[in-house]
């Protein structure tokens, strides 16, 4: 089992002829993912690693002859909103938005349209998601052989605001013998399609998942939202959190953002210190060191180290 993806999941890549998209397509195909088409306006008739390219999403759906499950959107920021609207209004239910530097207003519009149409957005500013040995949707984990090294199947669900740290943490879980159920790079922006709390019900319903690890940063309220969710839902899943960017709480760092756009601190509740306190108050264990994660997860699972 897994969340959001299965072996049968079909998806397209919007912006497939771009340099990064070509790499991502290769990586996903090598991993065994089912990419059934690509879209770049004006490039109909081409192929990218054997994947047919279309001008519109509607053409891709028509060619496939059945509804398409997902789309990875990797087009420039000014065109992303339109591409996501096109995906959603052509019946696609899972949209991974890779693009960064999209204004919040655009992201909020995409999310509102997705909500109205029963679709889910992952990202923006993310690397996508992966179910080890089943499906990889996005650049997460890199080339198939590298992804295989970092991601082995196991009981831990991973959600991270940093794409690179999704793989770093998953690799440490894999090395420790635990492994990963599904890992989601949720994106580094202030407003994202799927927050921790919004993905928790999926993990909760997934039999394979026995524990959750989250990577988090200063800025925004999604940790507070997760803390609320945990208190309200009596979750069966122990959660282990790691907070990066504690140095940003220093007086000299006020008003600055580091790493990701979403780390901009806009209120007292957004600081690392405040978030750690909130998560802990909800019974979520926040580790000080990144390498404590596997050990603490094992403790929580009752597995002997």
């Amino acid at each position: 089992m897994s969340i959001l993806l299965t072996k049968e999941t079909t998806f397209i890549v919007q912006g497939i002829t771009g340099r990064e998209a070509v790499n991502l397509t290769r990586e996903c195909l090598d991993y065994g993912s089912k990419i059934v088409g690509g879209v770049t306006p004006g490039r109909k008739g081409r192929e990218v690693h054997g994947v047919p390219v279309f001008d519109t999403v509607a053409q891709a759906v028509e060619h496939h002859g059945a509804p398409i499950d997902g789309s990875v959107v990797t087009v420039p920021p000014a065109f992303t909103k339109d591409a996501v609207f096109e995906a959603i209004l052509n019946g696609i239910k899972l949209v991974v938005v890779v693009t960064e530097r999209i204004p919040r207003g655009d992201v909020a519009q995409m999310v509102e349209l997705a909500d109205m149409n029963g679709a889910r957005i992952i990202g923006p500013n993310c690397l996508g998601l992966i179910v080890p040995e089943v499906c990889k949707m996005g650049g997460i984990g890199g080339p198939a052989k590298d992804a295989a090294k970092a991601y082995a199947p196991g009981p831990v669900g991973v959600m991270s605001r940093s794409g690179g740290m999704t793989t770093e943490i998953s690799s440490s879980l894999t090395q420790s013998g635990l492994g990963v159920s599904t890992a989601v790079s949720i994106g580094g922006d202030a407003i994202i399609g799927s927050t921790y709390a919004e993905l928790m019900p999926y993990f909760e319903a997934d039999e394979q998942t026995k524990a959750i690890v989250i990577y988090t940063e200063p800025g925004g309220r999604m940790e507070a939202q997760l803390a609320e969710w945990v208190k309200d839902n009596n979750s069966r899943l122990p959660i282990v959190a790691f907070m990066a960017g504690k140095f940003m709480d220093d007086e000299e760092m006020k008003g600055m953002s580091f790493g990701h756009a979403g780390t901009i601190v806009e209120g007292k509740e957004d600081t690392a210190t405040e978030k750690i306190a909130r998560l802990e108050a909800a019974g979520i264990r926040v580790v000080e060191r990144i390498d404590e994660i596997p050990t603490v997860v094992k403790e929580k699972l009752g597995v002997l180290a």
Partner: protein
Amino acid sequence: MRFFEFEARKIVELAGIPVTKYGFCTTPEEARAAAEEIGGPVVIKSQVLTGGRMKAGGVKFADTPEEAAEHAEAILRLEINGHMPRGVLVDPKAEVKQEYYAGVVWDGTAKRPLMLFSDMGGIDIEEVARTHPDHVGRGHVSNLFPIPDFEAKQAIATTGVTGSQLNRATPVLARLARLFRENDMTLAEINPLAELTDGSFVALDAHMEMENEAVGRQKKLLRKELRIAEDDDREPYEHSKFEEAVAAIDAADHRGVIQGKDHGFTGNLGLVIGAGGGSLTLTDAVRSQGGKPANYSEIGGNPSVAKACGLAKEVLEKDGVEKIAVMMSIVSNTRVDIVARGVIKACLELGKDPGETIAIFRIPGAWEDEGFKILARYGVEYCDRSVSMWEAAGRAVAKIQGEGAAA
């Protein structure tokens, strides 16, 4: 992007919200003329992008144009929290019956703009929300559909405001919500929104912030209406020589991305680190283990040898830097061997021994075997993913401190 009060007022005015007849002045003579035109008592306010101007003496009242000119002269020379004012705003001293608050912010959880209204204006809204929660009305608006007036009315009515006050305040809050959305603001507030003795509502002070990512598509407002120069970026602090040098190296070559910051960092351990989340994690790991970073940096997107070399050189040339730590979370796009070549080259070109200068190299991932061969050849201590980011940072700290103890 932050706006001065005189610009925020203009933005509010453009959205059809009434403001007083104010003047933006950069000389005492202009202030005198503005006060004459207003005719009557005025208030002179320093135009700075920082809080606490009232306490610092940046706001003064004047009864005559002469007094206005005198105050303007003093305020124009007054530095507040390290900021010199851009000018002064001359505003009529309004006959205020009651002060209100109207604001719009992002609610990241609901992913919608949130309207806020209070009948306790003139003070910090967070303070009001804490002490008098029943005096703060709230209401979300859609991102997609037109914003109807009634949603503003509902938010205001929950505070108990009724009568003509409700009817006057409603269009103000609705227009504020529309301008927030149309202009890509992250904050739009009018505080105080004043009800004057004649019953009219005017924005007496306004505070606006625009999302940096949207600056490119808001050119009409920024350049045409507000006449803000292209290079007027309004960062919270001035860029250092190091930051400018790194930005220039990054701009000169399209391959990969590097960033460097050293505002607030004064240590002896140079950090050549990446990527976004990795850099945050590593900076904390160095500090938590007693290390003193000389800077913050981010490598990403597979930079060229020259770019990695350029960043490492700039870090090494910072005052007080004795060694550098080269560390990243597992890479899948950026190549280990290319970064290894870059940082070693930086040492060689500065006449330093890479084995001595690079405290630790911890970048696992793409092309690591090739990278490790290069590092071994130059006697640089390196490690793969079996050594955690925490441990690698600790080794770097131990090395630089061991050296300090020996000397």
